[in-house]
């Protein structure tokens, strides 16, 4: 078991999250893709902590889990708000802050 396997897994997970972020329109899938990218970074931190023999990386991963939780709370509240206003979870149909006229 070498660190390279973990590095490869973290890179693949980050890329899958990136692909989901740019190619889907469903707000929930966007949210879960962002979570997946953050989780892959926390996997990387835990691996580096074991490679360098220092517990700081694990502590950073632990703090990152807290950041993920707070991000989840705000993002889900935002999705509920947007769905209540517009009755859709299509990320392309929100024009509230757009400069052009609401032509959707």
């Amino acid at each position, binding site marked *: *078991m070498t660190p390279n396997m973990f590095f490869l897994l973290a890179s693949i997970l980050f890329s899958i999250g990136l692909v989901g972020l740019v190619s889907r329109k469903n707000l*929930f899938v966007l949210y879960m893709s962002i979570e997946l990218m953050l989780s892959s970074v926390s996997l990387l931190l835990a691996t580096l902590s074991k490679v360098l023999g220092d*517990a700081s990386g694990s502590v950073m991963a632990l703090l990152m889990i807290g950041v993920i939780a707070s991000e*989840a709370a705000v993002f889900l*509240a935002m999705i509920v708000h947007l769905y209540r206003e517009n009755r859709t979870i299509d990320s392309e149909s929100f024009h509230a802050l757009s400069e052009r006229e609401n032509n959707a």
Partner: protein
Amino acid sequence: MLEISIFSILALFMIGGSIAMIINRQTVFSAFGFLVAMIGLAGIFALLNSQFLAIAQIMVSVGAVVVLSMLTILTVNANGKNLPDEPNKTKWIIFSSVLVTPFTILLYKTLTTLPDHFSTMETINSKVIGKELFSEWVLPFEILSILLLSAMVGAIVIARKSKRKQRRKS
């Protein structure tokens, strides 16, 4: 050898779960794929000898975040015409995968310049993490607690029904 096979199974679970997450049209199935990926991540943390991190991952990511997002998905209950129509979804996913692949290879190549062996150290249990967290990382810890509090307040404020709309209805 046993470790490698466990790692392979967990990695397959994670990659399969995340691919199922971005491919499925129904949001609930995406959430199930995400759940599988998060449980696999907890297993990999345990494989890295950081048991406390694995437990925290199970408790926070699986127990709180995934359950909260599933509850929201079931409450919103977008189906049929409320779901965004994505006629070219598969095409877009393949296209962006091709675009992202060089980035993945670059990331992996960069990371492999690090030493390719684990240091021999004791397991990172809660004692080590606790000592580190409350000596060197105490300021980020306090900032994180403020961040969690403000996120909670912000979530309540955002998700509250706006008064303007209520008045319009009545």
